[in-house]
């Protein structure tokens, strides 16, 4: 195990408030999507399960170190009565505070098979630099 003199600050989850969910929400119920969040030497990557959300219906914001995702679910025909009901359908919303300096000009996101992937490249200033040691 490596000694870490300076502890890395992990991204933290921010609570959804009515103010930040309500304007974008199209459904009555908003769900918290499942995410994978990891950091590589170059970037922070977030992968989020948003089944039933098209790429154009994802509202993704990165503002003052806060990443907010809102996915508007495409309405699909639903019955009034279920034989078996195990999950609900609604918009997805979640937000995270990213304590690492991000190069906002290089943000990239894509959706594939109902999974949203967001790439947050670290700013050159905060990337760890490898120092080459010369023998003399």
């Amino acid at each position: 195990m490596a000694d870490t003199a300076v502890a890395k600050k992990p991204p933290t989850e921010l609570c959804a408030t009515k103010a930040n969910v309500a304007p974008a929400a199209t459904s009555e119920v908003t769900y918290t999507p499942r995410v994978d969040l990891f950091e590589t030497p170059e970037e922070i990557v977030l992968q989020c399960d948003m089944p039933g959300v098209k790429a154009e219906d994802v509202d993704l914001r990165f503002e003052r170190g806060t990443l907010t995702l809102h996915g508007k679910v495409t309405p699909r025909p639903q019955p009034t009565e279920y034989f078996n009901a195990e999950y609900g359908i609604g918009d997805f919303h979640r937000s995270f505070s990213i304590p690492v300096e991000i190069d906002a000009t290089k943000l990239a996101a894509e959706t594939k098979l109902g999974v949203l992937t967001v790439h947050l490249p670290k700013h050159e200033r905060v990337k760890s630099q490898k120092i080459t040691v010369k023998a003399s």
Partner: protein
Amino acid sequence: MNLLAPWRPASTIWDEMNQFRQEMDQVFGRWGATAPTRPALAVSYPAMNLWEDDETVYVEAELPGIKLEDLEITVLGEDQLSVKGSRAACQPAQADWYRQERPCGNFERTIALPTSVVANKVEARLDQGVLSIKLPISPAAKPTKITVKAE
């Protein structure tokens, strides 16, 4: 909902259990009877919603990140549906993980259908991670309307 139902003394432990369950159902609503804004706890993966009309049984499941070719959908003995598949794990090299909530690996689930269906006419669609299966009800299982003649 009848809030002022008379209390009946229970005679056996089973009566008591049933009565308790009925009372709980009255308070919280019966499982499956309402729209899933308040879904029942899913015990298996994937969670499935199932409903039917006169012609078709509909099954829907959320399977984000899974390709159609990685799914195996089978109808067993006309009235059971099995969904089998796998989702690859996200394994980046040199990563520090902060959240890992998305499930990966193999899964298989078999559910009982409410009626028998025509297995060779089943349609499955996977759209943005939502699997919808349409299973036509077999003609033998459809209700027959009886015309009552007046004499």
